[in-house]
C-alpha cells in the first residue's frame, strides 16, 4: 500500500473549509476590536489586580450581610412575582392564539376571517413582547417607575408572558384533541371540554415549563439591578463602581448559591412532575 492511500481522503476539504472560516472570521475580529494585548497592558492589569486582591477576605460584616439578605430576598421575590404576572398574561393569550382551540376547529366548521385576523395580531403582539430582551424593558420602565423592583417585575412579566404564551400554545396545539372533541359532541361546553378533555393530558408539560421559566427568571432578576431595577444586581453594581473587591466577592458567592440552588430546585420539581 502506498503512503498516499493511507492519507485521510477528507483532509483537503477540511483544510479548505477551515481557511474559508478563518477568512470570514477576520473582519469580525476587527469589528469586535479583538486585541488580546489589551489584557496585558500595565494600566488594565493594575486595575484588575487591585480589584482582585481586594476579593480576599470577603466582606462578612453584620451590616453588609443584612443588606445582602434583603437583596437576595428581593431578587427571589422579583422572579416569583414576575412569573405570576407573566402567567396572568400568558394564560388568556395562549388560549386566544391556539388555532386548534377555536370554536371553528373544534366544531369542524370554517374559520372566520375576522377571528383569524385577530389571532394574527395577537401573535404579532407576542413577538414584540418576547422579542425585546427583559433588560431593555427594565431599562425603559425604570424611567417611568423610578429605581426599584417594580420595573424589574413588570419587565419580567412582559417578556416571560410572551415566551410562556408562545410555548403554552405550542403545547396545547400538540395535545391530543380527541377527548375534547368527544366531550363537545356529547354536549359539553367549550370550557368543560378544555378543562376535562385537553388539560389533563398536557398539564404536566405546562407546569414543568413554567418551573423552568421561573429558574430563568431568578437568573434574569439577579442582573436586573445593573439597570437600576433592584435586587442583588444593584448591590453588585455599587460595589463594582467603588471597586470594593471584598463586597464583590461575597455577592458573587451569593450569585453562585442562588443560581445553583434555583437550578437544583427546578430540576427536582421537574423530575417529580415527569
Amino acid at each position, binding site marked *: 500500500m502506498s503512503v498516499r492511500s493511507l492519507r485521510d481522503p477528507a483532509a483537503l476539504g477540511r483544510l479548505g473549509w477551515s481557511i474559508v472560516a478563518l477568512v470570514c472570521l477576520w*473582519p469580525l*475580529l476587527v469589528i469586535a476590536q479583538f486585541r488580546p494585548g489589551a489584557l496585558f497592558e500595565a494600566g488594565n492589569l493594575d486595575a484588575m489586580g487591585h480589584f482582585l486582591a481586594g476579593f480576599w477576605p470577603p466582606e462578612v460584616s453584620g451590616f453588609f450581610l443584612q443588606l445582602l439578605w434583603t437583596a437576595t430576598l428581593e431578587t427571589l421575590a422579583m422572579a416569583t*412575582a414576575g412569573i405570576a404576572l407573566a402567567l396572568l398574561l400568558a394564560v388568556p393569550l395562549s388560549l386566544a392564539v391556539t388555532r386548534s382551540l377555536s370554536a371553528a376547529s373544534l366544531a369542524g366548521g370554517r374559520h372566520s376571517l375576522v377571528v383569524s385576523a385577530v389571532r394574527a395580531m395577537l401573535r404579532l403582539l407576542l413577538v*414584540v413582547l418576547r422579542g425585546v430582551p427583559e433588560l431593555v424593558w427594565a431599562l425603559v420602565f425604570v424611567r417611568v417607575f423610578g429605581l426599584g423592583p417594580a420595573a424589574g417585575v413588570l419587565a419580567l412579566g412582559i417578556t416571560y408572558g410572551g415566551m410562556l404564551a408562545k410555548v403554552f400554545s405550542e403545547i396545547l396545539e400538540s395535545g391530543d384533541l380527541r377527548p375534547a372533541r368527544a366531550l363537545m359532541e356529547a354536549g359539553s361546553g367549550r370550557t368543560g371540554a378544555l378543562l376535562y378533555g385537553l388539560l389533563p393530558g398536557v398539564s404536566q408539560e405546562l407546569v414543568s415549563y413554567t418551573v423552568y421559566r421561573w429558574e430563568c427568571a431568578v437568573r434574569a432578576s439577579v442582573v436586573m439591578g445593573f439597570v437600576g431595577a433592584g435586587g442583588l444586581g444593584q448591590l453588585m453594581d455599587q460595589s463594582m463602581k467603588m471597586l470594593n473587591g471584598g463586597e464583590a466577592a461575597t455577592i458573587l458567592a451569593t450569585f453562585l448559591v442562588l443560581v445553583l440552588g434555583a437550578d437544583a430546585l427546578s430540576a427536582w420539581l421537574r423530575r417529580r412532575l415527569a
Partner: protein
Amino acid sequence: MDSIPRPRPCLTCVLGALACFAAVWASFAWLDLPFGELFAASALTDMGRFVGAFFPPDLSPAFLAKVASGTLETLAISAIGTVLAVVAAVFLALPAAGRFGLPARAGARLVLNFLRSVPELVWATLMVLLAGLGPFAGVLALALHTAGVLGRLFAEALENSPAEPEAALRELGAGPVSAFCYGVMPLVGAQWLAYALYRWEMNIRMAAILGFVGAGGLGTILYYELSLFHEARASTVIIAMLGLSVLVDTVSALFRRGRLAAQ
C-alpha cells in the same frame, strides 16, 4: 350515577398549589409594588406622554448608519465570543468527561460550574475593568459564560458516546490525538455543532444588551440615548433589537426544520 368512583384527593397537589400561592403572595407583599398609584389617572397620562415620546422613531440616515454598525458589532461580538467559547469548552470538556482521571474531572467540573453560574452581564462588568470599555470586553464575557455552559454539554456528549471505536484505533497503534479525532469526533461532532449553534443564537440576543455595562454593541447606543432622554432614537435601537431577535428566531426555525427534513 354512584357507580363512578370519586378520584382520591391528591394531598401533594393541594399542598404544592398552596405553597405556590403563598410564595406569590409573599413576593408581592415583600416587594410592596406601587401598582395602585400606577394605574391612577394622573400616572396614566404621564405614561401616555412617556410612550408618545418614543414615536415616531428617529430614522435619519446618519443615525440609521450608527444603528446598523451597532448591529454588525453585536453580531461580531456574539460570533467571536461563541467561537472562543467552543475552543475553551473542548479543552475543559476532555478532563470533565473523566479522560484524565478523577481529580481532573472534579476540578474541571468545578471550573465549568463557576463559569456558567456567573451571569454574562457580571462577567462583562469584570471584563470591562480588565480590557477597557468596548466590544472586546463583551467578547470575553460571552466566551467565559458560554464556555461553562458548552463545556458541560460537550462533556455529557463525550460520556454518552460509545468508547469502542477509539479503543479499536488505539489497539491498532494510532496515537491518542488521531484516535480521538477519528474515533470520537465523528460520533460527537454533530451534537457539539448543534449545541454551539444554539448558544450562538442565545448569545446574539445577549450581545445586544451587554452594552448596558459598557461592553459594546447595540446596548451601548441604547443606554447612551436613553440617558440623554432621546426617546425617538432609543426607539430605533429597540426596533433594531426586535428585528435582530425575530431574524435569529426565523433563521433558527428554518434551519431546524431543514435538519429534521434531512434526517
